[in-house]
């Protein structure tokens, strides 16, 4: 394993470091809030894993430049425009974007011949992982919110957020 191969995979090293940090915090911390923080770090590492995975070297954001879009709309009666319109936004509604992203790839492939002269020098990054992560982030936020809400209730009932103390209180009942 050469230095290049180690350094070239730096994104994975970051991911692994974050992942293990988060995982350790979740498992080792007895403070409920800290567990939640650990969980967040853990999840974030996965977001990074996905997003770096989607990045293509020298690729740009998958937005069809206006010049090509122009040609494309001549060629395919507005399909490109639709895709153009659809692709740039992203939301938690993974269903929508997921398909649209696929459609762009499809469109580009389908009309490859016509667009060849214009699009050969354009490399797009894969937008799909980012889109997926948007959904995952929403899930993460929901989890965090719920977890914090539970912690608030636990603290109201037990007066502490330390798991060991809580278990001791329970045992004392």
């Amino acid at each position, binding site marked *: 394993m050469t230095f290049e191969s180690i350094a070239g995979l730096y994104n994975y090293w970051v991911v692994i470091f974050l992942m293990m940090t988060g*995982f350790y915090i*979740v498992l080792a911390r007895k403070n*409920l809030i800290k*567990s939640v923080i650990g*969980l967040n770090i*853990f*999840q974030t590492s*996965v977001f990074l*894993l*996905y997003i770096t*995975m989607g990045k293509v070297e020298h690729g740009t954001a998958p937005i069809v430049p206006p010049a090509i879009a122009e040609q494309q709309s001549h060629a395919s009666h507005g399909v490109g425009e639709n895709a153009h319109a659809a692709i740039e936004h992203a939301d938690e509604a*993974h*269903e*929508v974007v*997921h*398909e649209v992203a*696929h*459609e762009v*790839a*499809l469109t580009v492939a389908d009309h490859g011949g016509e667009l060849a002269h214009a699009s050969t020098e354009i490399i797009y990054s894969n937008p799909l*992982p980012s889109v*997926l992560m948007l*959904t*995952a982030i929403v*899930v993460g936020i*929901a*989890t965090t919110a*719920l*977890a914090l809400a*539970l*912690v608030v*209730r*636990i603290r109201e*009932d*037990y007066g502490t957020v330390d798991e060991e103390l*809580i278990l001791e209180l*329970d045992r004392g009942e």
Partner: protein
Amino acid sequence: MIDAIFAHLPILLIVLPLMAAPCCVLVGNGRAAYLLALVVSFAAFACSVAMLGETLQHHVVRYELGNWSPPYGIEYRVDIFSGFVMAFVSGIGAIVLVYAPLSVRDEIPASKHYLFYATYLLCMTGLLGMCVTGDLFNVFVFLEISSLSSYALISLGRTRRAPLAAFQYLILGSIGATFILIGIGLLYQMTGTLNMADIAARVPHEHGPRTVLVAFAFLTVGLCVKMAVFPLHTWLPNAYTYAPSVVTCFIAATATKVSVYAFVRLIFGIITPGFAFDVLPLDTELMLFSLVGIFIASIAAIYQNNVKRLLAYSSVAQIGYMLLGISMATPTGLSAGIVHMFNHALIKGGLFMVAGCFALRLGSVQLSDWKGAGRTMPLTAIAWAIGGLALIGVPMTAGFISKWLLLTSAFETGRWPIAVLMLVSSLLAVVYVWKVVETLFFSEPSEAAAGATEAPLRMLIPTYLLIGATLLFGVWTPYSAGIARQAAIVLLGGTP
């Protein structure tokens, strides 16, 4: 019109409860929300039964969301297996709702009723969605929808331990979900697609590169947490014990089963059994963990004095039986695993309902408070006895069917030591079931039990529906074991 509805069945199944949930919030009234939820859950049940019928005829029902053709768009894909699982999940969801109102009134503050029903519907949406979708990432999304709503539902329990149980479940569940997410990501990295059928076609099976192995490992561990396979089951006993009775009925009967469903899909739909069991030694490992889990959890169940916790440990053990069947990877073994998902859902749903009836009348699920309740609440107590017999696997009950199929498949594959261990383990079930039966029928009534009256009919009828079903499907199996066998054959790549 009918045709139009039939064409949209797969999505209706999801959209109905999904839309009903916000409607429950909009109406903001417990009773109206209940009625809405009841209607919708029965509609979803009807949808899934209709879809099961379709799959039995045509094997696969597809639905392309937004008319984007797969693998570019999301495809909902229902085969016999998913049809079977979603039919019993929605069916039990509906029956539990019939049972719910009195218990909910007893255990949850009135101001939260409409939110409870909304969350319940969301949980159902998630579970059904997992069965219906053919897209791997969608599985994750629906898994999290159902998990998040079940965390919330569990935290509604009466005691202060409920939020803590929910929190522990949340932490472990989220770790599991994140593992699944990692696995999905790695698979996507290898294949460039999220459609399960497409992944299956593209993933290199023979000597899979390390990425596939790692992806598979992450997915397996993640799903094992959700399934509560020993030793990743630690969240389950507390969660089932401290959740409101109705929630326990529903989650115990369905949630782990749907995770098992996802696991079966993973092994038989994406990673082929050849890769999982022949290239990798997953079958040996699954059998080992299942058997150890069965024994340890059953023994733990014997020592419980809280009946809900007893049943929870028994659930951990029963998951082991399902995995045993699945790891055989023969038509009989797989169908044993599948039919046990169904049978156990009926049995455990019924038993937790009985526990709920006692909780309502006696105000406790401690065994010591149940003493002699068989005299004042004979119908409820008899329901327990029948359900208990089914759990043991006595002939003429549903539990026997799955146990019998498991045994025959163990012999078919020449694994008779497993057969022996399985039979010995089912003796442990006799002990923990009979402990409760004796307390109910042959003890001097406790204070609470002496003054108790029979559980209300509105709870007894749904309880007996499930308990009766365990008897029915113990003698008449074309629609349980029969369908499970067809599903298993399809999963193994044959035609039924």
